């Protein structure tokens, strides 16, 4: 997809990710290169049981970054395709794939306009990635389009409560509601990126309108003392009390 076709926020986020790719990997790459595991605290898929058996399944990863997930899925017998909005991130993925001797398609595109055929995947997944930085009203219908009937869409990201409780002055989580719940959708972060979040009822209505059945909402509670390169121990302590990260599981009917 050509840059002029991108939405304004997709352009901003492309620039943001191109710019912070090296620093991101420096901080997190070692932590997340650990197989099939979800999110801020890398909770194993074997424990959360989100995707089920992935063997011989066509899987699309939205916002694959350096494609840690897709490489692990390939190792588990899936046929992955990694999509990312940042060419710099995809260069990382390509280098890592070569180093690991793994091969699969990597696509440079926004999740808001997926340059792939209808009905071509059994699973679409994202561990944070695109759903944090793309507009749900654009990518949820796109995911429905590229999924086969009965296909699974599973993705992690922030919770509404996470959004409500960030003190922008100090950039920390507080045990206080800092902003309203109603109307949450788009947030221009001070770092130049644009992030998206919906109230839970809005998510459910969007899924159903797009032809999905809601199967689960997993609110991730990190185990005591869980490690993370994404969150400080104080933030992890917050997340032990209130959900900071959630995983939606919805199925195309």
């Amino acid at each position, binding site marked *: 997809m050509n840059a002029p076709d991108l939405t304004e926020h997709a352009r901003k986020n492309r620039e943001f990710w191109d710019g912070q790719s090296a620093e991101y990997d420096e901080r997190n790459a070692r932590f997340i290169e650990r197989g099939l595991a979800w999110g801020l605290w890398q909770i194993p898929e074997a424990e959360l049981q989100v995707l089920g058996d992935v063997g011989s399944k066509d899987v699309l990863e939205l916002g694959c970054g350096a494609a840690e997930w897709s490489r692990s899925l390939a190792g588990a017998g899936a046929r992955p395709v990694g999509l990312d909005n940042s060419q710099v991130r995809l260069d990382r993925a390509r280098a890592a794939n070569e180093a690991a001797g793994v091969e699969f398609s990597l696509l440079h595109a926004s999740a808001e306009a997926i340059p792939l055929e209808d009905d071509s995947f059994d699973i679409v997944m994202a561990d944070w990635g695109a759903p944090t930085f793309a507009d749900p009203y654009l990518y949820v219908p796109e995911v429905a389009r590229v999924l086969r009937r009965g296909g699974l869409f599973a993705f992690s990201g922030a919770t509404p409560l996470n959004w409500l409780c960030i003190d922008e002055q100090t950039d920390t989580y507080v045990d206080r509601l800092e902003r309203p*719940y109603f109307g949450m959708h788009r947030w221009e972060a001070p770092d130049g990126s644009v992030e998206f979040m919906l109230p*839970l*009822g809005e998510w*459910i*209505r969007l899924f159903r309108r797009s032809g999905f059945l809601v199967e689960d*909402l997993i609110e991730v509670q990190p185990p005591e003392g869980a490690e993370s390169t994404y969150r400080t121990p104080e933030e992890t302590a917050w997340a032990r009390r*209130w959900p900071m990260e959630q995983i939606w599981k919805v199925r195309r009917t």
Partner: protein
Amino acid sequence: MTLSEHAERNKEAWTGYAPEYAANAERAWGQEDVTWGVWQIPDAEVHALPDVAGKDVVELGCGTAYISAWLARKGARVTGVDVTPAQLETARAMQAKFDLEFPLVEASAEDVPLPDASFDLAVSEYGASIWADPYLWIPEASRLLRPGGELVFLVNGTILVLCFQEQEIRPDEQLRRPYFGMHRFEWPDDPGVDFHLGYGDWIRLLRANGFEVEDLIELQAPEGAPPHRYEAIAGPEWARKWPSEEIWRARKTG
């Protein structure tokens, strides 16, 4: 039928509240429109309910049965279920006053003496949905519904429960208790027991009992809404920003 310990306690608590509800029952029964919760948001606006004409409807935790009355006027064949005899007495007095008869059953929604698959819609508003244990009443609602039947119930806003101040008896902006493990709540100076679940727990419970989740309607106080008499449920300023009430809509599959 033996009542659970919390059902016994809630029956006693509601026997105490019954005179206050009796005093307001006539106004509630006299209302023309079907509305939701303390902000009286018209169902025509949020579309929580299906067309009820000709349908068999059970109200779980009906209290003075004003919701049943509204739905009966729209052509539903309603049955009200409540655990508190004093509340049902008020409901019976209103039936006589408004000349609108329908069956009233004295029972907890956790154990309803009615046959399987006998209703098209189960509804609960400030009833079983708050004062019965969801792990007991949701399976009962599922049992009572026919395949394809609908379940519509209103609960307190989840964030409201997290922010509730025990002393002031209303929420503010402070998270006062953890979300993980939400289930059974007892409050100082409140003889009753109420139940509140996290969102994921609701979804899993509904699905485990054969329901598809169709909607979660988070009610927002209308602009310029005047304060209402149920102060514990949040004032208009709070309820403009955060959901004070949430309606789940689910459909029994099969």
